């Protein structure tokens, strides 16, 4: 039986993280009451005109530099015409002939190695409004808050070969945009959406099959499911002696299948032409250089550096390098700890990675480009520095952290107020150990008869009596000595 290979190209729409819309001053904030973030321009009222948002163009150019594109010196907006109630002007302002970014690509990390996915272009365009069908009235309701929100459309070459690769590409692309500060990549809020072009061909063939466009695949899981479904569907068509028809299909996640939206013969003529309301933009070298300089360290490089310099495992680096604000926090905390406790950065990084994952991460909230942490990076580093200095032990540190968070106190303040400093005084520890040994003759006998596992019981008892403050090393030493005495 012939084996087939899938050929997949993706078109990703990512919302640019600007405060205001692409061609007017309306807010882009998500979640406002319907039709409260609108003006004559984004409602397409007669006479209203677009005025380009420089911040959006700058972010889109930064995205181009982050993805290795050639960023244009001359770029232009075109009108793409079609009628739909969610498209207020009857055309979308987009880019056709002179897109802002061309070329570039992304090297996707896969379990079996890497795959280079080339990009065709990244252009700037405005979003449409959001329509919803109201079952009660049978009416279609339109919310124009989203109309005019700035997007980049990132078009890949057909370089992906499987649903897994497509998913990996999307996740990595989202991470790049997130770290570059270009887009928050929030799928739930619709700021990262995907369409796919899929065809199949006999394995080994170099020609492209008839492609089908898949719409409405707006989660990583939908992408995998929809592509897998479509590849199976096309294989079944071909094996059944049929031919794949060029069409646009829409994915229905509830039913786990796609349905034809329109065929090739119904393909729209969008009647593109240069938007006469928007003169071409000339971007000079200084401006372009500034955009290039804004591109920060990207996630793949950052995670490699975390593993190399901050003593992290690949998994630590993946978890803590998942979000730029989290990565910045961990690195700040690790560097502060290294400085305060005079530790090598690798050692401080490893300790910080462990503490953050075990004690902090569940209380971290990530939203968009922002993150909020229960305590500051400096405060966390100071807490761990107290452990390094022997002032408190690790267990106490764990108890101090929530107090710091709840009461907004420094670690040192909590330790001083609650008298939590570690007891390392051997006289006091000897006394505690003697009390415990005297109180548990049966266990002492067990220990002395060779049941060494009972040592842990004694450790626990002594620590408990010290309210956790005893230096565990000193306790261990004293216990060993006293239990050895016959």
């Amino acid at each position, binding site marked *: 039986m012939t084996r087939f290979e899938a050929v997949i190209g993706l078109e990703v729409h990512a919302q640019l993280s600007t405060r205001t819309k692409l061609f007017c001053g309306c807010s882009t904030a998500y979640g406002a009451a319907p039709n409260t973030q609108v003006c*004559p*321009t984004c*409602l*397409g*009222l*007669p*006479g*209203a*005109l*677009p*005025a*380009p948002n420089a911040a959006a163009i700058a972010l889109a150019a930064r995205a181009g530099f982050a993805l290795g594109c050639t960023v244009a010196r001359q770029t232009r907006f075109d*009108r793409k*015409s079609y*009628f*739909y*109630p969610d498209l*207020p*002007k*009857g*055309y979308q302002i987009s880019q056709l002939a002179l897109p802002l970014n061309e070329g570039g690509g992304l090297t996707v990390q896969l379990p079996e190695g890497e795959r280079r996915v080339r990009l065709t272009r990244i252009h700037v365009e405005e979003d449409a409004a959001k329509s919803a069908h109201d079952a009660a009235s049978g009416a279609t309701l*339109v919310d124009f808050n989203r109309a005019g929100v700035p997007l980049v459309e990132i078009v890949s070459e057909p370089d992906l070969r499987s649903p897994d690769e497509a998913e990996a590409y999307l996740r990595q692309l989202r991470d790049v945009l997130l770290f570059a500060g270009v887009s928050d990549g929030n799928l739930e809020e619709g700021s990262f959406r995907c369409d796919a072009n899929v065809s199949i061909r006999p394995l080994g063939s170099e020609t492209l099959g008839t492609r089908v466009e898949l719409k409405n695949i707006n989660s990583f899981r939908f992408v995998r499911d929809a592509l897998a479904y479509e590849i199976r569907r096309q294989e079944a068509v071909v094996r059944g002696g049929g031919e794949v028809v060029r069409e646009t299909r829409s994915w229905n996640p509830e039913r786990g299948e796609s349905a034809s939206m329109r065929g090739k013969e119904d393909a729209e*003529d*969008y*009647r*593109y*032409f240069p938007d*006469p*309301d*928007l*003169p071409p933009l000339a971007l000079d070298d200084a401006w372009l250089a500034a955009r290039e300089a804004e591109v920060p360290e990207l996630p793949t490089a950052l995670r490699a550096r975390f593993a190399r310099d901050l003593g992290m495992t690949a998994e630590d680096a993946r978890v803590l390098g998942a979000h730029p604000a989290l990565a910045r926090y961990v690195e700040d905390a690790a560097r502060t700890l290294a400085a305060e406790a005079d530790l090598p950065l690798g050692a401080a990084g490893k300790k910080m990675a462990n503490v953050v994952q075990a004690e902090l991460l569940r209380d971290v909230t990530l939203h968009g480009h922002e993150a909020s942490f229960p305590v500051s990076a400096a405060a966390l580093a100071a807490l761990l520095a107290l452990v390094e200095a022997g002032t408190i032990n690790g267990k106490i540190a764990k108890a101090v952290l929530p107090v710091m968070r709840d009461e907004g106190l420094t670690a040192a303040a909590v330790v001083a107020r609650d008298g939590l400093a570690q007891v390392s005084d051997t006289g006091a520890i000897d006394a505690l150990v003697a009390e415990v040994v005297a109180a548990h003759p049966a266990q002492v006998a067990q220990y002395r008869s060779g049941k060494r596992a009972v040592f842990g019981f004694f450790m626990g008892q002594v620590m408990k009596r010290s309210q956790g403050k005893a230096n565990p090393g000193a306790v261990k030493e004293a216990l060993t000595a006293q239990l050895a005495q016959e």
Partner: protein
Amino acid sequence: MSAERLLAAGVAAAAEAVREGRVSARELVEVALARCGEDAHGALLHVDAEGARAAADAVAAARRAGGAPGALAGVPLAIKDNLCTRGVPTTAATRLLEGWVPPYDATVVARLREAGAVIVAKANLDELAMGSSSETSAFGPVRNPLDPSRVPGGSSGGSAAAVAAGMTPGALGSDTGGSVRQPAAFCGVVGLKPTYGRVSRRGLVAFASSFDVVGPIARTVRDTARLLGVMAGPDPEDATSADAPVEAYEAAAEEGVSTLRVGVLRASLDAAEPGVAARVVESLGRLVSAGATLVDVDLPHADRALSAYYLLAPAEASSNLARLDGMRFGPRASAPDLRGTHEATRAGFGAEVKRRILLGTYALRAGYRDQLYGRAQRVRTRVARDYEEAFARCHVVAGPTAPTVAFPLGAHAGDPMAMYQADLETLPASLAGLPALSVPAGAAEDGLPAGLQLVAPAFAERRLFAAGAVAHPT
């Protein structure tokens, strides 16, 4: 001087009288409202008596409070009804905007108000500014006040007629292919199409965005210059508005033409009706008497301007008018499905608008775009170059504004090509985005006025006012 006499004396005279306290804004506005109320020519679509009185009283109150009165203090104006006026219906003479009340003022309207002008009425026009006779208005044609059996020209026919009939001393029109200049010529008043980008388009219901310019109409060159001085200047909300400095336009009307070289379009004079040509030549004679010199110039590609314009402007219009879909404003026809709703709603466009939407849609079809739209753009570039070459030899280019005087209503009914010929002389400057002024040149055929058109390089409006004031002394 009485309020009636002051209004007749014009924009500047009325404003000075208000500034000096010789007449109140309210008195001027009451006279204008009375005249607007008698509108016998279909020039107006809406009279805003309440808003006008309130604005006049506000001008008076500001003056009493010691505020500096603006350049248009208390001057009643009519505004072409394709310019948005906050709280006042704006229909652009189409059924598809019937009943629509804009929530904002066009930038030019806001600037007029800030200068103390009082908006008394919205002027009739060809539907969506598409036409050269003001006959295509969905709300009835405009008649020429000089001869009611004739058209006033178009599309700003209501604005020109309002000024010619003395309803207001000034008005705003819009000019896409000649829509300020040609009606100004037909009605015997002064009309300016400023340089593209000189005046903000924000709030102008778009017809062809790369051509549309808002322009003033008045009885004198000086008044026209004063209006431009208030209207002009960059607008952050119009990306095509220009940063060029706003100059002393009104002073230019006093400067004379002693060093001016005037390029005469001989071919255009030959093509005009004899009476029109004779009056234009006489106007040129006044320039020569004042010291100007004449040279013959030629625009070799002007003969292609008409066909290029009637591809490019409809192409842009087909896109600009897509928003008139009955979804967010204007009347919506009812039909069982979305497509049907769009079709039934848009069936409300008049025949000329439909013709241009179809033409424009055709011009932008995939596969034909370069052949049609692209070629027309290249003609546009050539016409602009023709002017550059002409301006190497002269300061302004002169010729008739229109080849004929005002024609009878219905004369071109059913013959769009004949109607389009009315724009022959005004289109080249529109393609090139250049400033152009039409001044009355005197009575020609049937005693109706001819117009002299003067065209200058971009942003050289001052030259037009200097030459226009000499050619049309007041």
